[in-house]
């Protein structure tokens, strides 16, 4: 047992170090992401298509179109030079495109998932193919964007050369899917009727409440490890800004996504209808690389792994990451492994 005096000294040292970290983080100022250079190649109703620049000509490089989730901002994939999946893909010789979803306005509350999948993604795919004079491309769907990408690939199989899904829910009702259980009995018609577009802050609070101790308290206490390390404090501030900056969700699309998928698990039952067509995952015959995180608390590995049972391709691979839903985007380990594996997998099939 330690003495009372030693305990008091321990607490005092702890307080002093934490205060120093908190004081330093207040002085950081701008914590916007430092995004890689890019150009806007297409602007449509509800989206922008970005193309990332490199010093070398694009033509010979395989094109990768990233479809990110609607519920968060995509710049977690390009947070800062050392934590940028996009930068790593560029370094590995990819021609990287990204769909940036624009915030829905009040009048967009009736925008459906069909609009996102069969209009917006399709326009972007066509734009990439036109820019590169090709007819097929590699699509990388991330999180909810992976589900949208799967639907697109099932509905437009001729336009996709290779499909990569990353932390993507497919079976929405596996036993360990906490989020799915929580929203099972939510009255979505009333929720969307009340809010119109569903506030991003509301969803954000729900995500944080999945790990209340860790996300609500521990990460701030862990700041003491970052005292006197301005670079890591800046990364922390950028992550905090990303986490808090959740866009609102178009009411109808939200209702369709949560109702059909989280509440009725329609995708794996061949009952998910987009633009009057049933999304049949067995239509996906192109090579598929399914990447998931073993400690993912938002999209459990079980929800992603299920994809193997439903796609119709012979060339199906999995890549597992020993970490969580956010770590797979920004952790040092992920930066070293994930983009390199994706690039290698694509190049072997180009």
């Amino acid at each position: 047992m330690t003495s009372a005096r030693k305990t008091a000294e321990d607490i005092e040292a702890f307080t002093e170090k934490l205060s120093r970290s908190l004081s330093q983080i207040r002085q950081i100022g701008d914590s916007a992401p430092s995004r890689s250079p890019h150009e806007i190649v297409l602007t449509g109703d509800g989206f922008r298509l970005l193309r990332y620049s490199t010093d070398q000509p694009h033509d010979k490089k395989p094109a990768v179109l990233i479809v990110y989730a609607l519920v968060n901002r995509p710049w977690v994939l390009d947070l800062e030079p050392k934590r940028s999946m996009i930068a790593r893909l560029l370094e590995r010789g990819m021609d990287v495109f990204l769909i940036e979803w624009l915030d829905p306005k009040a009048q967009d509350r009736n925008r459906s998932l069909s609009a996102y999948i069969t209009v917006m993604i399709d326009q972007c795919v066509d734009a990439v193919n036109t820019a590169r004079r090709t007819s097929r491309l590699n699509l990388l769907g991330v999180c909810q964007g992976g589900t949208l990408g799967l639907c697109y690939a099932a509905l437009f199989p001729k336009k996709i050369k290779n499909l990569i899904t990353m932390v993507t829910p497919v079976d929405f009702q596996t036993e360990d899917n906490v989020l799915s259980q929580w929203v099972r009995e939510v009255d979505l018609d009333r929720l969307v009727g009340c809010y119109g577009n569903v506030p991003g802050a509301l969803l954000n609070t729900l995500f944080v409440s999945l790990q209340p101790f860790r996300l609500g308290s521990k990460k701030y206490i862990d700041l003491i490890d970052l005292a006197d390390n301005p670079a890591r404090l800046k990364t922390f501030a950028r992550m905090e800004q990303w986490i808090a900056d959740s866009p609102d969700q178009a009411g109808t699309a939200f209702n369709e996504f949560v109702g059909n998928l989280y509440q009725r698990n329609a995708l794996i039952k061949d009952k998910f209808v987009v633009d009057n067509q049933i999304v049949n995952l067995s239509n996906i015959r192109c090579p598929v690389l399914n990447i998931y995180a073993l400690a993912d608390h938002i999209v459990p590995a079980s929800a992603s792994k299920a994809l193997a049972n439903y796609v119709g391709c012979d060339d199906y691979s999995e890549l597992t990451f020993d970490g969580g839903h956010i770590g797979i985007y920004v952790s040092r380990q992920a930066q070293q492994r994930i983009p390199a594996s994706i690039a290698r997998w694509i190049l072997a099939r180009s």
Partner: protein
Amino acid sequence: MPHDPTDQYQDFLFELRKTLQKMNDAGSDMPAFSQLPGWREWLKADNDPSGDITSIEKLETLKDQFLDDPAKSEAASRYWHAFQALQAHWIDISSKSWDTARMKSIETSSATNIRQFYDDWIEAGEALFRERAVTTQYARQVGEWINAQVDLNLAFGIGEAPVCVDPRDLKAALTEAEAREAQLRSELEALKSRQKTKPARATSRGKAPSKTSQSIRTDASSQRETTLKKSRPKS
């Protein structure tokens, strides 16, 4: 008597969490009615379990404020009951996780510093929460909390409740659609039979596209990746 540091740690951490709560509240941009059960509520519950936010008196006061409007009174009551049900879980989990961390500290002498004690407490709390969060009861209570919030908004004139369609109107619309479909079918049949009576024209078509087989290449580099597993999906 040997000194047990966990009392001091616990007191300090309570105070620290209060400070964090103030910081978080200051940074919150959430509208008052749209907060879901999140960590701010956890902190409040943990710091002040006997506070007036959970008290029946407060609920009754709230109800009393809208006595002249039963819809508002009922919605307010439902909201606070839903909140209270969740808060009871949070207080229980917080309390048990403190006990677990304390027991671990005493049994293993693991908590030689406050950071270790804090990490033990977080670990215990997350483990207990994971067990609780997947229970049907907790999930239903989260759903009820969200639904109650929506009702509260609607009762206070925020947003529009979806229009309930009369089943008789639905049935009438269905009958009308079926009649229209039957008419279209008969018109289609008539068109087909008219087509059949026309003389057939010789047409020349291009060569039918041949069915191409796709070769499947194995990826040697991916097989070297220890965690990159290649498997065929089940048919």
